[in-house]
Each structure stands twice: as structure tokens, then as C-alpha cells.
């Protein structure tokens, strides 16, 4: 990656590019957003939106997950390789879900 492995000899500072110290405000901000997200999830579940309920719940959960991954797990500042790994995890999960459901949903579609 964009790491230049400067030999860190003195014992001060960061010796590799990935070590990014985030300001405290970011952590607290994310935390607050997660709490708000949880409350909104519960609240939205009580309103009858029909099929939309699921979608709303999933969208909020995904947004929360994204915040955790990007900030708590530092992926925002991580190498492309890390991005690739994270993305492939979710991509494969999607393969499994979508292709399996493809069978269940389309039973009886053709003749």
C-alpha cells in the first residue's frame, strides 16, 4: 500500500502510515449516531409500513454497521487491501442470500 516503512528508530511518532489517531469527537459522534439509530429502529418498527418495515430496519442497521466499520474499525483509513477484504465478505454473503432466495421466490414462476 501507500505505506512507506520508514524505519522508526527514535520510538516516537507513527512508524507506518496506517496508524491513524482519530480525534475523540469522531468516536463520540459515531457513538451518538449509533444510539440514535437504535432508537429510530425501535420507533420505526412500531409503525405499520407493510413490507417497508423490513427495508427500513435493514437500512438503518446497515448504516449503523457502516459507521462501526468505517470509524470504530478504522477502515476509512485502512489500505485498499482491507477494503477489498471487507467488501468480499459482504459480497459473498450477498451471493449466498440472493441466489438461495432466487430459488424460493421463483418457485412456480415458470409453468
Amino acid at each position, binding site marked *: 500500500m501507500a505505506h512507506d516503512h520508514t524505519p522508526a528508530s527514535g520510538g516516537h511518532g507513527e512508524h507506518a502510515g496506517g496508524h491513524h489517531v482519530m480525534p475523540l469527537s469522531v468516536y463520540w459522534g459515531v457513538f451518538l449516531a449509533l444510539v440514535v439509530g437504535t432508537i429510530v429502529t425501535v420507533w420505526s418498527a412500531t409503525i405499520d409500513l407493510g413490507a417497508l418495515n423490513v427495508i427500513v430496519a435493514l437500512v438503518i442497521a446497515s448504516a449503523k454497521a457502516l459507521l462501526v466499520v468505517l470509524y470504530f474499525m478504522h477502515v476509512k483509513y485502512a489500505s485498499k*487491501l482491507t477494503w477489498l477484504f471487507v467488501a468480499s465478505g459482504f459480497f*459473498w454473503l450477498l451471493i449466498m442470500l440472493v*441466489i*438461495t432466495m*432466487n*430459488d424460493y421466490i*421463483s*418457485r*412456480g414462476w*415458470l409453468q
Partner: protein
Amino acid sequence: MATTHAVAPAANGEKEPKSFWSDGYGWKSWLLTVDHKRIAILYLVSVVAFFIIGATFAALMRLELATPKGDVVDSETYNKLFTMHGVVMIFFFLVPSIPAILGNFLVPLMIGARDLAFPKINLLSWYIYVVGGALTLLAAVTGGIDTGWTFYTPYSSTYANGQVALAAIAVFITGFSSILTGLNFLVTIHKMRAPGLTWFRLPLFIWAQYATSLIMILGTPVIATTVFLVALERVFRIGIFDPALGGDPVLFQHLFWFYSHPAVYIMILPGMGVISDVIACFSRKRVFGYSFVAFSSMAIAVLGFMVWGHHMYTTGQSAYASMVFSVLTMLVAVPSAVKVFNWMATLYKGEIHLTTPMLYALGFIGLFTIGGLTGLFLGIMSIDIHVHDTYFVVAHFHYVMVGGMVMAFLSGIHFWWPKMFGRMYPEWWGRFAAINIFVGFNLTFLPQFVLGFMGMPRRYHYYPEEFAQLNLLSSAGAALMGAGYLIIFVYMLWSVKFGLKVGANPWKATGLEWKIQSPPTTHNFESIPVVDEEAYDYGRGHAKHGKEASVVR
């Protein structure tokens, strides 16, 4: 870098050079080792032991099937035999065969590293493998399992007798061994390549291992969870897969094949990697279309995850889903074809040496082609309806797994044997056994294609009279093939002690592993090499005639 290191074979009896073999002799030095080479040897011993067990089951099965009546064992025993044969051969022999033995030994050597990224985890994965194997054997002797290696519900979860839960747990545990190996390889290949060794300078064996590792870490967890659910269902009747409790047995098949189809590529990609290296070496040529061969491995790994439903055409899966699976199955065959053609092109204008590893490699090309093309039959919905769960399928997968992967395994083992042991096996016997196995193999499994088309279902203890002759032929072939394996077993053991000693590079092959002594020292490289040459750079001096005594001239 380009200098050859081949040295005259030391006269027998001379003091052994220091190597990873001489780095400690006690049992502790083996059982607590973190050296990837020693772990590879541990795997070699245990994987071969499981092959012998699996082959014994096969021998009993073929003996039984020699006649239509069930005269050797009873039905229940027969069912246990093929179940154990499948489970042992797949989970304990073929899946770990090339990755865990050759991969462990070679990945660090080929990329110029001193070890895998996580040596302790590497040892751990061997222990997990051994525990899983021991539990499976325990299940076998304390009641056995008769579900078939596919563990279909609700038979496995509710109706089967025997130790299904224990076997499921054993498979679950073994999965972790596979996952940890894959994880280790992935990280090692990403992070520990020697300076100058860019992705496109890697041997194709490494590309194949990389693709295999991807499948291992992405697929194996799913089978682990799935068999675990089966065990839960069996013990607690939780209702997930049992229709009597509201569950859907077909969901089990989806989850099972989500892993088990990609797993068949775990069982072929490493073999393809071996074949690329062997063919390049014994044609003294760079592999034709290197990057296409490399990327086809990745294409197989990714596409391979989207075709699992071709095992389920007759289950009542929606016709639309079957269609999607069918077309993707067709697509995944294309990268395999690309590889076969590139290997053939590599032979063109080469300098071909028909050594033992090369014979196996050529055998692989032929047999894998037959196995793969008959896989296409099965991928077509209307055709599969008739031959699904018949001996046609049995023949198909033995062609790809035995004709393909086992041939590749034997090829690789012979090819790197001198590197692992510093000694050569007897070449004449090597070629003899190779031809013996090739003939015996075809005699065993070619008739099964015919049997399958005639409609003989698989997993049949009794079968109708009209299938008798072909089955007898198949059993005879198995005996012949068995003799071939026996020969290999004997001369390989012999060679460890009495084989001709060889130098660093008896085949005059390219690649970092051949630039260090045979067998390597514990730390592989005195100093980490800097790579400045392309993969398979056979044009550069290696192929020149030399005076050194080495097997390839």
C-alpha cells in the same frame, strides 16, 4: 540469481548436510515444530494414512460390487462403507492433499519467505485436522454413519442410525483446519513475497493456492454452521431441516452445496497449479499465456460460488433458479478449458522430458478433460434429470478427482520429492506405476459412464443382473489401479532411505525453491532473495546443457 546450483550427487554414506530433517530428532521436535516444512511432512504422513483408509473402503466396495448380489457385506455395512469412503476421501484426503502438504512445504519457499505468516496457527491447523480425523474414525468404529457424504436431511437428522452427530461435529472441527490453512496462505502470499517478486512473477502454483485459499475461507464456514445445525437437529429436534417439524429439507441442500460445490474447486485448483509448474519445467518453457492461466484460477474461484444448484435439479428447485445455475455452470467450465489449451500450447516447440511427474501431468490433462466435459452433461438440466444420482455422476467425479486431482497430487509429490527428501525415487518404477494407474483408472471408471447412462443408480448395494459385467470390469480395474498405488507406496518409502541423493536442482527448474539446497535448512534462505526474473524463465540458462549430473539433461 540465474546461476544453477545443481551439484553432483553426493556419494551415498557421506555425512548428511544440515537440513530441516536434522534439526532435532525427538518426537517433540516434530510434534511441537512450527517449521512449515516439518508440518508439511506431518500432513504427508497423516493424509496418506487417510488415503489408505479411504482406499480400503473403496476396495471393499468394489469387491462387493463385483457381483449383483450382496454377498460380501450386508446393506447397512455397504452404506457405511461408501459414506466413510466419501467422507474420508474428501475431507481428510483430497481437500488437504495438495494445499496442506505441497502448499505448506512450497508456499514460503516459492515466495522467498522463511515461513508462513502464522507458524503456530499452522501447527494448530494440523492438530485440528488430526482431532477431526480421530473423531471421524471414532464415529466409524462406534456405530458408523450411513448417510452418504452429503448428509442429506431429514435422513441424517432424523432417520439414520449411528453416529451422525459425532461425524457432523468431526466435519465441523476439520473445517477449521481448512480455514486456518487458507487464512495463513492468503496473508503469506499477500505480505511475505520476497522483494521483486511481483504478482506476475509468481509461480502459477502460488496463484492456484491463492484462489484455493479464498474458497477455503469463504466457503468452509458455511459447511461448518450447516453440519452443526444438523447435529443440533438430531439431538434437540429443533425443526430447521425436518419437514415433520415444519422445516425445509431443501434448505439444507442449498447450504451444503454452497460449500461443497466450491469445495470441488478446492480439490482441483491446487492440482492445476502443480500441472502448470510441472509442464513448464519438463517442456523447458514458460507457461503459455501465463496471465490467462493465473486469472482463470481466480475466475473459477469466484464463479464457482454461484453454481451450486446444479446438484439440485431434481429436488423441486424452481425451474428458473435451475436455469440460472445451469448457465453459470456452463460459464465456469470455460476458464478450465482455457487452462487445458494453454498447457497444450506450452508443449508446442518445447523440449519435452517424459519424466514421471510429466507423465502424470499429461494424464491429468486427458482425464480432467473427460471428467470436465461429462460435468457439462450434468450441468444441463434436461440431461441431468436422467443421469442424476447414477453411476454417471460417480464416474464424472472420480475422473476429475482421481483422474484429475490425485494424478496432480502424484505429479507434484514426485516432482518435489527430491526437494523434500533430498533423494530421488526410482524413475523406471515411477513411470511404470504411472502407466499402470492410468490404465487401471480408465478400466475402473470408464464402464461407470455406461452404467450411469443405462440407469444404474449410485449407492446401490444390490443391482440388477444386466449391470453385472460392466461392474466386474470396474472392480478388476480397481484392483489394477490399487496395485499401482501399492508400487508407489513401496518405492517412495524405499527412496527415503536408499534413493539417489540429489543436489539443489535435479530438474533444473526455475523458481526460488530450487535455488536452495535439498532438503532445505530450517530457515530456508540465508538471506531473503531479491527476485529479478520472470516466472518460468527457462530461456535463461537453465535449459542449457550442463555437465552436472542431474536427472534432466
